């Protein structure tokens, strides 16, 4: 079984400031890692994913995340945020498997609010 902890429930920042949203996970097996974004009254959109290889992955909208196996973390970062980045961000994991049917386990979510 997997679990995900997002350490900050709310992160307020000013426009053009850098931001880091923290995510730690626990799993007895190897996992794939994801960040999803949910804009108000919308569904979940994939920002980026880590499957293997380089531990720094780049996603859409200027976001990136770094996989740290020793610290079991997958923190999301953006060097300069915009008002339009205001949304809920979810970290998620799924077990690696021969077939790709594993469920996603989500964290509690982090509400990022970008203020002018």
């Amino acid at each position, binding site marked *: 079984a997997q679990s995900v902890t997002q350490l900050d429930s709310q992160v307020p920042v000013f426009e053009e400031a850098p931001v880091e949203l923290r995510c730690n996970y626990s799993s007895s097996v190897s996992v*794939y890692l994801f960040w999803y974004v949910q804009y108000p009254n*919308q569904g*979940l959109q994939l920002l980026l994913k880590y499957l293997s290889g380089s531990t720094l992955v780049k996603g859409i909208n200027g976001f990136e995340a770094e996989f740290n196996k020793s610290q079991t973390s997958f923190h999301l970062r953006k060097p300069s945020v915009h008002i339009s980045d205001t949304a809920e961000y979810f970290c*998620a994991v799924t077990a690696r498997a021969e077939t*790709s*049917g594993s*469920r*996603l386990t989500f964290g509690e*979510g982090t509400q990022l609010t970008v203020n002018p």
Partner: protein
Amino acid sequence: EPEVTQTPSHQVTQMGQEVILRCVPISNHLYFYWYRQILGQKVEFLVSFYNNEISEKSEIFDDQFSVERPDGSNFTLKIRSTKLEDSAMYFCASRGVDRGNTEAFFGQGTRLTVV
């Protein structure tokens, strides 16, 4: 770009009534999922479906819930007798079965309100 579509976007039902939430997954995907998100809480897994049968379900997915793929394109979630605590946003997702297809694509969700 292919997408997962869900209908209706919002449904209000009386407690004890049956509801069916509908989803059209991406056409060449073979894994299908339902998740729910109670207001202000995290997204929770309900059930996964593959090869016309449930492959995994959570403890939330009790006898009141059922899923079906009736016609090869739709994927439905039925709640037999709704309770107030079933009020939530329900998300459908689908994923390809190829080894490289690790991403689940989500629909826009159906907001279910039980009154």
